[in-house]
């Protein structure tokens, strides 16, 4: 039965929507921004039949899929699953209660009262059986009035009373409302009637028009009554009743803050500008909304319309004004801008049309600078005299306020092309002009002349110019910034962090210079330190920057207009901010992509700015946009764990298993919900706020047992923080978190620590013993080493003794032989008696010399032997090698091998144990002599040469050499083969060399023989 009625109702509404409407003005959506919410956004059903706004500013809506609460950001749905007392999801009527509750009626005839998101009471059924609750209304005296189907009934003191019940030709949308004087009106089949405790009476009985069936009535601020009919509307204005046609059936009437009255119904939404004060000609709003069943205006001025089948529609005025082609501009593509000096703006519309626009926004005049060669206007500026300057390829045009034009031709570029004057920067009554080949020019009343002293650093287009407060001229090029001060040029390039794109914007601020580039974003340069900081913008394209009176930057970008607050910039530069918080006005706010005018942004006075976009000129006054609108209220909702009746207010009890909380900040804000920022902290856990940006939902996890305080704050972008009432979180302790368990834990820890310490002590003692053992071992090793050294020296001496025997025989034998021979010769000469005395004297002198020589041998030998115990000493390489060669001479002579000693120039003294090193060398030389003996060429070369910070000794022979494979075992093998006899074993030689921190190497000598070498550090 219910279903049949429902279907019939919808059919009627659908038919009604096709009723033709009269010719009317259509308001382009241009003046309004639209937003639609559907089931995809969380709306429980696509048809919204009722809308009410509660005292906190939240919007409640009725659908046949349940009830919802909307804060502009998300839909909180209350359906049968959550509120089983409703018995069905088809909510058909809503009414606010004086105590802050909400009356909810359903198609099934159920009436309940919702309060704090729970059903506070359910009314008993009316004595009419199950009838749809069409309308609910609570009168100031607390009586609940209801249209139940075709019956008007009231509920008071626990009982229903039916006032009227008869078939209605309109079947639906019968209304109830209260006049400011307290009277309650019902709209229904009998027109507008006053509802009193005594019964129903016709309202304003003198007006017959009010007796026709009415759908809705609304009193405006001036006390006039607007009545929705089917079709049309009535305005009761004092003694007059005026009729409004062309609006279809009117289900809902609202009046906005500006005094416009909005009528909506089966022909969509119509606006009556100025309400009763206007011409009552309805303008149809070009919104694809179909049938509207309910409307309301939020506290922040958004008109919400509940449609039949097309979701919820939001309409709001554009935050920024815009003027485009539809408003009379020749072309919506806007180029360069210049203030007119009187609060308006000159703008290039399209190529060469200059439009003069005020902030209404209204087009005042159009001036064409089009030429035969179609040179577009590429730059604009206004000088101190109020002249407007325009740059075109090859020329500059100046327009006086009375419309006079004067033109200066520009010299061609270096490449012979027409010079492009862009940008233009006024300096007093002159104009500084940047050209496309890097030159700068000054345009004055009389001429255009190159800027004295300026030599272009690059042959590239100047893209921006700034005359700094101290007179510095800043010139921007693609990827290059040049500072020109007192004739000195300083370049800042990519190596300094200057972005590579075109530098479009130069602006002093924050103690440095802001550079805006198209492609490289916004960076800040500290000119003295060349420090560069890049602001992390999501859109790196930058066409222009405006700075409002609060110091906030308004950036014109590809995505629209982005606001960077002064506080944000300073936090970023100081490193305090972890991410950039931005406000974006994009296409959804009516701002198209920024254009590339020079300049693309202009301050035009009285706090207004003009922005040139590819689709219209946008005019905005930042002071009107920011900080004025913000949510009327906000609250912190705990989403999880689910709240129970047992919770005391302001306390969140958490059990032992789940210690996390999902919380949400809800705030009714419909005009710019994305600008709400939130942060929270858990005291005393958190040192700082957790910033969650434009997120509203956050999770607090892993809480410790005990009591915490959850604090949350919100603000709108650029506004101040607002604290929400803190909530206490009480986390139940797990068994091991109880005092007893903790005491036990302490005991266990103490015992454990004691055990650990004992063990550690034992370990330390063991380690100590091991250390002592190690020390002893090292001492013994050191002693063994000493012993070894002594043995080595002994071995050396023993070996030396054998060598000395052979050497002494030769060294001493020669002078002795010479002495003997000389003495014998002298004796015979004297005997022969004929020899001159002089010759005898010569012979005797030679004998003395030879005796001396023999003594030298003895002395050298003693010196040599004495040094054995001297340890490391400074050694003169040449002397040491001479001694070695002398020692080896015996062997060498015997084997008929020549021993050549070569000390290269630059060979420094070394530090080492002389005797041991000599033993090594002696060993190597005698081995080499052995190897070279019986070879066609018998030569041993002992060589010393500088090598790094040491001296490399090489003993090379002309012997057969040592095969590669044997070299590795050489030092071992020789120990066994040649331990005895002349020379030391090679292994001993190796150990001596090792002891000198050197390596004894063997390699192939140039002639094929063996070469042994090692390097000893210099002294």
């Amino acid at each position, binding site marked *: 039965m219910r279903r049949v009625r429902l279907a019939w109702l919808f059919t009627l509404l659908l038919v009604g929507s096709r009723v033709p409407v009269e010719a009317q003005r259509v308001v382009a959506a241009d003046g309004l921004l639209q937003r639609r919410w559907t089931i995809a956004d969380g709306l429980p059903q696509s048809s919204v039949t009722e809308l009410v706004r509660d005292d906190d500013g939240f919007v409640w809506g009725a659908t046949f899929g349940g009830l919802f609460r909307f804060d502009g950001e998300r839909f909180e749905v209350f359906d049968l699953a959550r509120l089983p007392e409703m018995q069905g999801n088809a909510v058909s009527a809503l009414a606010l209660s004086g105590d802050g509750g909400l009356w909810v009626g359903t198609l099934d005839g159920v009436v309940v009262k919702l309060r704090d998101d729970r059903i506070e009471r359910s009314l008993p059924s009316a004595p009419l059986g199950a009838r749809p609750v069409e309308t609910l209304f609570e009168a100031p005296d607390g009586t609940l009035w209801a249209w139940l189907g075709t019956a008007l009934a009231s509920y008071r003191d626990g009982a229903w009373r039916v006032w009227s019940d008869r078939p209605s030709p309109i079947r639906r949308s019968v209304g109830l409302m209260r006049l400011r004087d307290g009277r309650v009106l019902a709209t229904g089949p009998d027109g507008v009637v006053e509802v009193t405790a005594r019964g129903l009476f016709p309202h304003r009985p003198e007006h017959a028009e009010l007796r026709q069936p009415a759908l809705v009535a609304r009193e405006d601020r001036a006390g006039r009554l607007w009545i929705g009919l089917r079709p049309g509307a009535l305005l009761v204005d004092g003694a007059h009743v005026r009729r409004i046609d062309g609006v279809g059936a009117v289900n809902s009437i609202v009046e906005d803050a500006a005094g416009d009255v909005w009528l909506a119904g089966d022909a969509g939404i119509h606006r009556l500008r100025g309400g009763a004060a206007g011409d009552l000609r309805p303008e149809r709003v070009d919104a694809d909304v179909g049938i509207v069943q309910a409307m309301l205006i939020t506290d922040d001025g958004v008109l919400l319309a509940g449609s039949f089948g097309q979701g919820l529609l939001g309409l709001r005025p554009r935050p920024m004004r815009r003027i485009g082609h539809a408003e009379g501009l020749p072309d919506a593509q806007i180029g360069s801008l210049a203030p007119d000096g009187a609060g308006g703006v000159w703008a290039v519309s399209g190529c060469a049309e200059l439009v003069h626009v005020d902030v209404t926004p209204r087009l005042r005049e159009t001036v064409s600078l089009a030429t035969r060669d179609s040179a577009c206007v590429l730059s604009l500026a206004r000088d101190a005299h109020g002249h407007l300057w325009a740059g075109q390829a090859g020329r500059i045009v100046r327009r006086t306020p009375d419309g006079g034009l004067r033109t200066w031709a520009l010299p061609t570029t270096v490449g012979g092309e027409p010079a492009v004057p862009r940008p233009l920067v006024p300096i007093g009554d002159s104009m500084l002009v940047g050209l496309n080949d890097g030159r700068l020019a000054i345009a004055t009343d009389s001429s255009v002349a190159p800027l004295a002293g300026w030599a272009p650093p690059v042959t590239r287009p100047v893209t921006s110019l700034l005359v700094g407060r101290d007179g510095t001229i800043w010139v921007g090029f693609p990827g290059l910034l040049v500072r020109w001060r007192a004739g000195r040029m300083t370049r800042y390039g990519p190596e300094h962090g200057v972005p590579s794109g075109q530098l479009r914007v130069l602006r002093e601020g924050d103690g440095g210079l802001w550079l805006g580039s198209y492609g490289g974003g916004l960076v800040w340069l500290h000119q003295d330190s060349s420090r560069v900081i890049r602001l992390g913008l999501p859109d790196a394209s930058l066409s222009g920057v405006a700075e409002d009176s609060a110091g906030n930057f308004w950036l014109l970008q590809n995505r629209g207009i982005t606001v960077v607050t002064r506080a944000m910039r300073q936090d970023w530069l100081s490193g305090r901010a972890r991410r950039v918080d931005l406000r974006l006005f994009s296409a959804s706010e009516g701002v198209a992509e920024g254009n590339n005018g020079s300049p693309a942004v202009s301050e035009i006075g009285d706090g207004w700015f003009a922005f040139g976009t590819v689709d219209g000129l946008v005019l905005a006054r930042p002071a009107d946009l920011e900080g004025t609108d913000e949510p009327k209220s906000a609250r912190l909702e705990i989403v999880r764990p689910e709240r129970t009746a047992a919770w005391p207010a302001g306390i969140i009890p958490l059990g032992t298993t789940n210690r996390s909380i999902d919380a949400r900040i809800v705030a009714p804000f419909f005009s710019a919900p994305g600008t709400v920022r939130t942060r929270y902290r858990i005291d005393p856990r958190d040192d700082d706020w957790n910033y969650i940006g434009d997120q509203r939902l956050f999770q607090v996890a892993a809480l410790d047992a005990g009591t915490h305080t959850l604090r949350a704050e919100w603000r709108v972008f650029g506004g101040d923080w607002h604290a929400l009432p803190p909530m206490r979180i009480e986390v139940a302790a797990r068994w091991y978190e109880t005092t007893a368990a903790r005491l036990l834990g302490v005991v266990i820890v103490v015992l454990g620590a004691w055990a650990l310490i004992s063990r550690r002590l034992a370990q330390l003692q063991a380690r100590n013993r091991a250390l002592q053992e190690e020390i002893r071992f090292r001492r013994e090793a050191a002693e063994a080493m000493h012993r070894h050294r002594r043995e080595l020296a002994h071995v050396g001496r023993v070996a030396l003794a054998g060598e000395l025997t*052979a050497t002494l*025989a*030769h060294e001493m*034998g*020669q*002078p*002795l*032989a*010479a*002495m*003997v*021979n*000389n003495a*014998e*010769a002298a004796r*015979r*000469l004297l005997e*022969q008696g004929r020899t001159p005395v002089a010759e005898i004297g010569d*012979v005797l002198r*030679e004998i003395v*010399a*030879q005796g001396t*020589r023999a003594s030298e041998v003895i002395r050298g030998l003693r010196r040599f032997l004495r040094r054995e115990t001297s340890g490391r000493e400074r050694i003169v390489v040449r002397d040491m090698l001479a001694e070695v060669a002398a020692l080896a001479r*015996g062997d*060498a*002579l*015997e084997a*008929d091998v*020549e*021993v050549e000693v070569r000390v290269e120039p630059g060979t420094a003294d070394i530090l080492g144990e002389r005797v041991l090193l000599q033993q090594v060398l002696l060993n190597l030389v005698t081995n080499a002599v052995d190897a070279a003996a019986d070879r066609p060429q018998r030569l041993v070369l002992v060589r010393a040469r500088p090598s790094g910070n040491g001296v490399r000794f090489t003993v090379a022979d002309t012997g057969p050499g040592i095969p590669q494979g044997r070299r590795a075992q050489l030092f071992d093998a020789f120990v066994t083969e040649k331990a005895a006899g002349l020379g030391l074993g090679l292994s001993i030689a190796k150990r001596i060399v090792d002891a000198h921190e050197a390596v004894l190497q063997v390699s192939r000598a140039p002639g094929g023989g063996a070469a042994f070498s090692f390097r000893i550090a210099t002294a």
Partner: protein
Amino acid sequence: MTTPNDGPLIVLVDDDVDVCMATARLLRTYGYRVQPYASGLSAIAAVDTRHADVIVSDLRMPALGGLALCQRLRREGVTVPFVFITAYDEPGLSDKFAALGHVELLPKPLAADALVAAIDRAIAAGRGGQTAE
């Protein structure tokens, strides 16, 4: 008999210049003509080495020792007798001289008488050898 210009020619080779000069001086007092050389190499390069009556040479010398000098002269066909002087007591050395014609070995330090006697024996042997040819 003792004039230096007509006595037997002795080529004296010793790498120790002092010893070489002293020995030369001593031998001259005996009436020999003495031509000293300070190395085996300079001795073998000299023409008079081939015409000497006797060559008195140190055995151990660098580069070209006395034995090598003797061997090379013998290969040239020079039969000049040799008197070797050595500072070392080396048993078995004389066996090496078997094929080298007249060779005497004298130990250092040497007595003048022994040297002169050895030289005279060598001269005699040399003349005898030449006669035999």
